[in-house]
């Protein structure tokens, strides 16, 4: 466990100190949400109706686009070689890195949700519903996106290619995340979509690390 704790501590320290990761993710989230009213108009009733969907889209883009450098930075400075050679299985190391990334970049998005809910005129109940579904769903986005981040190392590309690879994979999470928050707001059955959302997260915890590790093993050169 000390190895995993050390990795989490390191990644979070870097994310906090370099002023990149966490803050820029939240700023991106805020910007995406602020852009929406300019596209659909400043009609508060409409924004309230679209609110959960806008927040989910913003959080999805923010959590996937910050994943870009998850493995790339370690690859460029040679750290990845040592991680592969460590006595921690690569799958576990990948899962740990994804967890650290979610803690540094995913959690701040959820913390920022109430403020953004205010901009979209969501009431307390709706904001809580969106925050709860984001809490259940963003880990899945991180663990799915990790596969793309690992492929980016293999392919020596990042940025938009990563987004194109990973965004289709995140569609189920988006569907059930928005469905669960809408259900909670309108008083429909919240349990079913929320359970499926949690199940999607659990599946990604299993698939993500193995796919990422396999991709990284073949990407080394």
């Amino acid at each position, binding site marked *: 466990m000390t*190895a995993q704790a*050390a990795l989490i501590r*390191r990644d979070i320290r870097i994310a906090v100190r370099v002023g990149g990761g966490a803050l820029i993710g939240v700023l991106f989230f805020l910007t995406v949400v602020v852009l929406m009213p300019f596209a659909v108009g400043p009609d508060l009733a409409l924004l309230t109706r679209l609110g959960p969907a806008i927040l989910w889209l913003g959080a999805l883009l923010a959590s996937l686009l910050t994943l870009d450098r998850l493995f790339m930075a370690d690859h460029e400075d040679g750290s990845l070689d*040592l991680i592969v*050679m*460590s*006595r921690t299985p690569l799958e576990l190391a990948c899962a740990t890195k994804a967890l650290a990334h979610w803690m540094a970049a995913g959690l701040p998005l959820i913390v920022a949700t109430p403020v953004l809910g205010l901009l979209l005129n969501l009431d307390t109940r709706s904001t809580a519903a969106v925050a709860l579904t984001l809490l259940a769903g963003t880990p899945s986005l991180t663990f799915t996106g990790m596969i793309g981040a690992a492929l980016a190392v293999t392919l020596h590309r990042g940025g938009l290619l990563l987004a194109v690879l990973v965004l289709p994979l995140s569609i189920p999470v988006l569907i059930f995340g928005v469905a669960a928050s809408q259900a909670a707001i309108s008083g429909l059955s919240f349990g079913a979509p929320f359970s499926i959302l949690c199940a999607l997260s659990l599946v990604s915890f299993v698939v993500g690390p193995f796919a990422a590790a396999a991709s990284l093993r073949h990407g080394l050169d």
Partner: protein
Amino acid sequence: MRVWGRGVGCVRGGREVFSRLHFEAASGQALAVTGPNGSGKTSLLRLIAGLLIPATGSIALEGGETELTLPEQAHYLGHRDALKPALSVVENLAFWRDFIGGEAGDTNKSLAAVGLDHAAHLPAAYLSAGQRRRLSLARLLAVKRPIWLLDEPAAALDTAGQSLFAGLMGDHLASGGLIIAATHGPLGIAAKELRIGGAS
């Protein structure tokens, strides 16, 4: 403990780098891999480290801990220093000590051994190239692993650093360690030579 390779071949990007390579090194021995640029010295080290897969032949470890694979008992010192500029010198070292696994030593002693103890709490970003290399060397001391795979270990080191490092390698061999190093110049210790590629 013995590391050997039989008929090892390496193909990179469709090009055969070397083939039918035999080598062997035992505890207390150093193997210096020499050859012109592009002859595949780095590739050979990465094959042994398990970071590349040999196209033909096999590489194996005899002796050592049976539970662990060859890469898990080896230190790899590559061209890149595996340092994070945002972390302090001691944070960088402590992370690798805690993470890679193996008998952990004292970070302060390791830093003192490579002459970096005065900078322990400064960001690694402030180090010069030679100091970064010294910090990488401290990693070999902070975690005990019997096999050292070194790629141009003397690069960027000043003369004092080179003789310091020769001393560290001597200690490692004396305690039953094994060193395989790719090098252009003299290593500073007695070593078998493995010459690959090219007639020059």
